[in-house]
């Protein structure tokens, strides 16, 4: 029997809609199992809400409610106090995959691809068949709009089932209500933990949350000011890939290579631009479109060699040391908290910046013998899953924690001790290992920066522990002398039958204050 012809095969080929593709590959987006799906839905909603509030310059106030409807169905309601959404865009934002403002921007935001929230809508539709209900009002003077919608998975278009205007005093902001199949768990991988970690990293946000068991959480603000808004930037020359450069050369409006370099990259000025052209042996006046492949390669290599300033930091929204300390302090009653913020660095042309914090002791004391709790964040979003493949975990495991006072069996791996270690990486483009955004790819440069940040904070921890030990030793010393010196006299009096009128207090005080006797003699220490 003859095989198919190319023509016949061509008939089988057809375009697959993005929505259809994700319907078949939901694990890529973090919906691999019911427990994770519930967290992902909350996470996508929270990401969007916080991004929107910050962009609008409003201190975020989120209200999240999860109702257990039975039979593994949960209704999630998430309301923010953000700028609201204009009526025309509401269906697309929630009902169309890959629709968003963030994909092409080199500015830091929580969401990147414009998939998250519509994927949640799609997931709801696939598991319970229920439409999403979106309500939004832009300000006090405008009308509240409400849509009931689904996604047409073949055409990747919103399918509006119902549309209405409300007049019931809905507070400005956006609310999404969806019903999904899920599983509510507690402890590490839970919505509760996710929101707690979110509250720590975003201490200027007020988050109210009611979980499926009816427990209410109120994560209040520790700071009443928004961090500076990140600016959009052009790529930095360090680490740009050839394909990207090639595309930029073709697309540019500049007429000369030199002006292309100056206009399309950040931190390249006239001098450094000329230097790059000279090193690359490329005519600075040549038309960018006309560069041959080998010239492009030389240009790229030269760009890596010329000393260029670090990328501007205003495109990033790092979590400052102050903010980390405040965030940790408000949710963890620790005995010691420290934080470190590194200078921005670049990987593959993308600026990134690492900050970290350590909370030690206090309420954590009971976890003395357990592994430390690691809180990983990318662009202020907690990462709960795939810890072992993450650059942050790798850096943490490679750090020699014994030097800093934590127990690390085998001098390798996650240390043990009563500590929470917080690590935040922000970047205009975080290199996640997958679309579900759970772990950061292990670029050597990122691992190195995380390690340096951890070491800096760990040095603070070591200082604290050694002060504490010293204080403890001093206290113990005082206690031993105060316990036993009076007994020395008391028993000598009993033995000699003499000296009843004496007191040893002044001698004892001198011994405690002045260390009269060298204290490293033979004999083992008696408690």
């Amino acid at each position: 029997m003859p095989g198919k012809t190319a023509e016949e095969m061509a008939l089988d080929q057809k375009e697959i809609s993005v929505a259809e593709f994700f319907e078949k590959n939901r694990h890529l987006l973090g919906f691999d199992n019911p427990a994770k799906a519930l967290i992902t839905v909350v996470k996508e909603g929270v990401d969007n809400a916080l991004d929107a509030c910050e962009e609008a310059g409003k201190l975020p106030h989120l209200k999240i409610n999860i109702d257990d409807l039975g039979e593994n169905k949960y209704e999630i309601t998430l309301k923010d106090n953000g700028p609201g959404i204009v009526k025309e865009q509401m269906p697309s934002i929630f009902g169309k995959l890959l629709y968003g403002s963030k994909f092409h921007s080199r500015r830091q935001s929580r969401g990147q691809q414009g998939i998250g929230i519509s994927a949640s809508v799609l997931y709801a539709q696939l598991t319970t068949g229920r439409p999403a209900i979106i309500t939004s009002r832009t300000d006090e003077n405008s009308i509240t709009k409400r849509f009931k919608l689904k996604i047409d998975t073949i055409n990747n278009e919103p399918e509006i089932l119902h549309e209405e205007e409300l007049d019931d005093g809905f507070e400005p902001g956006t609310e999404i209500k969806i019903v999904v199949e899920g599983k509510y768990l507690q402890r590490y991988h839970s919505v509760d933990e996710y929101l707690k970690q979110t509250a720590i990293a975003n201490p200027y946000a007020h988050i109210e949350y009611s979980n499926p068991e009816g427990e209410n959480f109120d994560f209040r603000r520790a700071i009443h000011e928004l961090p500076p808004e990140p600016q959009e930037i052009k790529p930095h020359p360090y680490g740009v890939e050839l394909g990207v450069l090639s595309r930029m050369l073709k697309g540019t409006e500049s007429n000369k290579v030199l002006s292309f370099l100056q206009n399309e990259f950040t931190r390249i000025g006239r001098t450094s631009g000329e230097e790059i052209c000279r090193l690359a042996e490329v005519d600075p006046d040549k038309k960018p479109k006309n560069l041959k492949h080998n010239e492009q390669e030389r240009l790229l290599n030269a760009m890596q060699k010329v000393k260029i300033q670090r990328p501007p930091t205003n495109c990033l929204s790092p979590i400052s040391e102050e903010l980390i300390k405040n965030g940790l302090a408000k949710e963890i009653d620790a005995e010691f908290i420290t934080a470190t913020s590194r200078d921005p660095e670049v990987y593959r042309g993308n600026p990134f910046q690492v900050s970290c914090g350590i909370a030690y002791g206090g309420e954590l004391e009971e976890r003395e013998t357990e592994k430390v709790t690691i809180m990983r964040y990318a662009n202020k979003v907690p990462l709960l899953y795939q810890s072992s493949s993450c650059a942050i975990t790798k850096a943490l495991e490679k750090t020699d924690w014994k030097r800093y006072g934590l127990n690390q069996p085998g001098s390798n791996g996650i240390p043990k001790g009563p500590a929470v270690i917080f690590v935040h990486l922000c970047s205009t483009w975080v290199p996640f290992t997958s679309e579900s955004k759970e772990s950061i790819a292990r670029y050597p440069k990122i691992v190195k920066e995380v390690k340096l940040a951890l070491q800096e904070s760990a040095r603070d921890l070591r200082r604290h522990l050694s002060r504490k030990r010293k204080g403890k030793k001093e206290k113990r010393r005082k206690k031993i002398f105060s316990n036993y010196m009076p007994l020395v006299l008391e028993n000598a009096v009993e033995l000699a039958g003499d000296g009843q009128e004496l007191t040893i207090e002044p001698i004892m005080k001198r011994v405690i204050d002045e260390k009269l006797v060298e204290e490293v003699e033979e004999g083992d220490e008696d408690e």
Partner: protein
Amino acid sequence: MSDEEISNELTEIGEIIIQKVRENEVPSVQIPSRTTSNIVYDENLECYVLGGKRTERSAGNIRHVKRLAQMLKVASFCKNELMGTERHVTKRELYYISESWGDKLKFKTQDRSDDLVEDIEAMIGKPREDLKINPKAKGSIYGDMTLKFKNPKGETMAVNCLDSADGQSIGPRTCEADIIECNADKVLAIETDGMYNRLMEENAHEKFNAILVNLGGQATRATRRIIKRINEIKDIPTYIFTDSDPWGLHIAMVIIAGSAKSAHINERLATPDAQWLGVTASDIADYKLRSDELREVDLKRVDELKNDPRYTKNDRLVQELEKWEELGRKSEQQALMRYGFEYVVDEYLPAKLKELGAPGF
């Protein structure tokens, strides 16, 4: 040494502390150091004694202050609770008694209280028996000798060591008893219970005009003490009869020259005149005794003893040690039983006593 004298010695320790406090100084006491580097062999006394090194135990030292308080408590306890009474305590009892001194002073483990007792012994230069802290009662003594002591009720009584069926047990009262009559002209100390019993049954004490002492293995301090006292007070020779192996020989040596552990009081325990009678290494062949092969630990012990200052100057003993090495065999006292019940008394011991020039042979 009377209770009163001991009391005074103990009181002096307390006075040292009181004096320092009066002078507004940090209280401390000097204790003869009992570390190995301070244990030396005294050629004149022919036993191990403590050297001149002293360590200071100061209330101003974080590592000492608790032990100093405990030491004063133990001294005070001995003085106020034991001296002038008929009471004695064992080291183990002392450890439990410390429970009543409160959490701060009580001993965590018995070796800590044992250690302090030895410190006090070293400070006053008297064995703990004088403090009425008892050694174990393991040995016993049999023969025509009358001892006078106070019984536990405090009544003075006299006992002849032949009056007790198995011999008089050597405890704290016996070892310090007055020797009011002794008709024997020698002491024969025996390593094993079995041989001691054999000699009693074969009338050895009468035949040899001897006091028999059962060592029951390594001699306790009380046993060494009474052997020393009989030797000194009655001026009669001592012969030690052990198994034919390095361990048996060393049982004799500890009686003769004392042990390193009791260096601080060896002067009161050692009997330098005492002689080892056998069973010697040569006897194994001479008497065709049934023997066993020397094990590795035995040979190692031989080696250690060959380098011990207590042996090196005694050619006879060094030769015996070498003989064991050469033979590679050892024997027990009881191996003599192959020749019958009476052989040891009729043949072996008389030959040996004669060889050593014992009185009456």
